[in-house]
């Protein structure tokens, strides 16, 4: 149990996927315009990430390892992620059309979200068990959502601010992202082993 909590805290805050591994930057910059769409995106990624990591673990442990097919891990993980994204897309389209519209192109782009493939690959290299993998994927998604929502909040406030025109739009977003990454570095001493 202690290990699971450690995994959770370290993945959400200390080794955050976006701000310390710089994975999943594309949706981080693309969908962080409004808090509602950031929340929806975060939930979709969290769902896909925890499921993908869990299923990837099962496939890796019970199919790839016994048959000695480790070379296939990238292809198989992508396959799992792509199918899951399709499922999530169908669910969202069915049950919340407005969320579907606001996520737009970024929803199918979760397929190529490197944070999700990253979580599956980290799970392999760190030799996590099944439960640990699921918690790792889930907390990765939670960390992603957290950063996305913080970013969306900041960007919504900045809409009303008087910004020099050279910094408007993408430049300021990148500066804010860099500052957020610096802030999250402050968490690095949170757990002492």
């Amino acid at each position, binding site marked *: 149990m202690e290990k699971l909590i450690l995994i959770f805290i370290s993945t959400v805050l200390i080794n955050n996927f976006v701000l310390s591994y710089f994975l999943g930057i594309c949706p981080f910059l693309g969908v962080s315009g409004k808090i509602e769409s950031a929340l929806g995106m975060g939930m979709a990624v969290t769902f896909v990430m925890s499921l993908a990591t869990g299923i990837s673990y099962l*496939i890796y442990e019970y*199919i790839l390892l016994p048959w000695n097919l480790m*070379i*296939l891990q990238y292809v198989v993980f992508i396959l799992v992620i792509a*199918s899951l994204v*399709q499922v999530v897309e*169908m669910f969202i389209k069915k049950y919340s059309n407005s969320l579907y519209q606001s996520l737009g192109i970024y929803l199918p782009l979760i397929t190529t979200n490197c944070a999700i493939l990253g979580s599956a690959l980290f799970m392999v290299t760190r030799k996590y068990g099944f439960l640990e993998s699921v918690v790792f994927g889930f907390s990765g998604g939670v960390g992603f959502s957290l950063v996305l929502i913080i970013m969306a909040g900041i960007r919504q406030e900045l809409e009303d601010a008087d910004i020099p025109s050279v910094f408007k739009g993408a430049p300021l977003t990148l500066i804010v992202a860099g500052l957020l990454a610096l802030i999250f570095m402050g968490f690095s001493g949170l757990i002492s082993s």
Partner: protein
Amino acid sequence: MKEIEIVVLVLGLMGFLFSLLLAFLSKKLKVEEDSRVEKIIGILPGINCGACGFSGCAAFAQAVVKNSKIFSGCLPGGPQVNKEIGALIGVSEVANVQNKALICHCGACDKEKLTSTLYQGPLTCAAAHISGGALDCSWGCLGLGDCAMACPTGALVVKERKVYIDYAKCINCGKCLRECPRNLFELIPVEKNKPIYYVACNSKEKAPVVKKACSKGCIGCGICVKLPGSPFYLSENISYIAYQKIPSPEIMEDARNRCPTECIIKVDSPFRKSES
């Protein structure tokens, strides 16, 4: 078994299983879309020009199904497309949809309109219109080509500061109408296989001012208005054509020949190839 066989088998099986799952779920979670949306998308030209005010043809189709009043919103499609959409969603006033043709209310080229100052600002009409320096006439075409830049089909060409419209390419999307800072463009109703006439001047100044700035401007003399049965009328020192009156070609030709500044223009076939 060789390794490659195992690889193919494992990956193939996995892909097959996932695809089965997806096929099952797509049946189960199918969203019932209005079947008319698909049909309307099929009718629309599919060029996503945005002239209707929506982000593309698909967005327009969805909006039409919800609000049938905007059925004639597709300008490039023209009456044929509008009629089909109207019929599909059951709008009754379909018959009133008319063919349109684009005209430019300035027909003077570089030599004919005077420029007495040197303009060195940004080479866009929008900027030149603010300073007004690029042309003596404060109503006519600045000739810097904002309309040609905006035109999605390359139907507008600006040569010697005059706009030439290639009717074979023009899709009546109306982007130039919004782009021109001097509002020179207009979409006028046309009838099949008939020429169109229009007054190629936009200057609302009195005759002496117009004459000073341009040799081809409408001076508001009223010769065209006085002809019997004329559809022309004067307003703010400029002649307009009331397009709802359908004049005989003889009157229009007569008016064109009598215009002292030759600013009534005739276009023989303002149609796309598919229409004529």
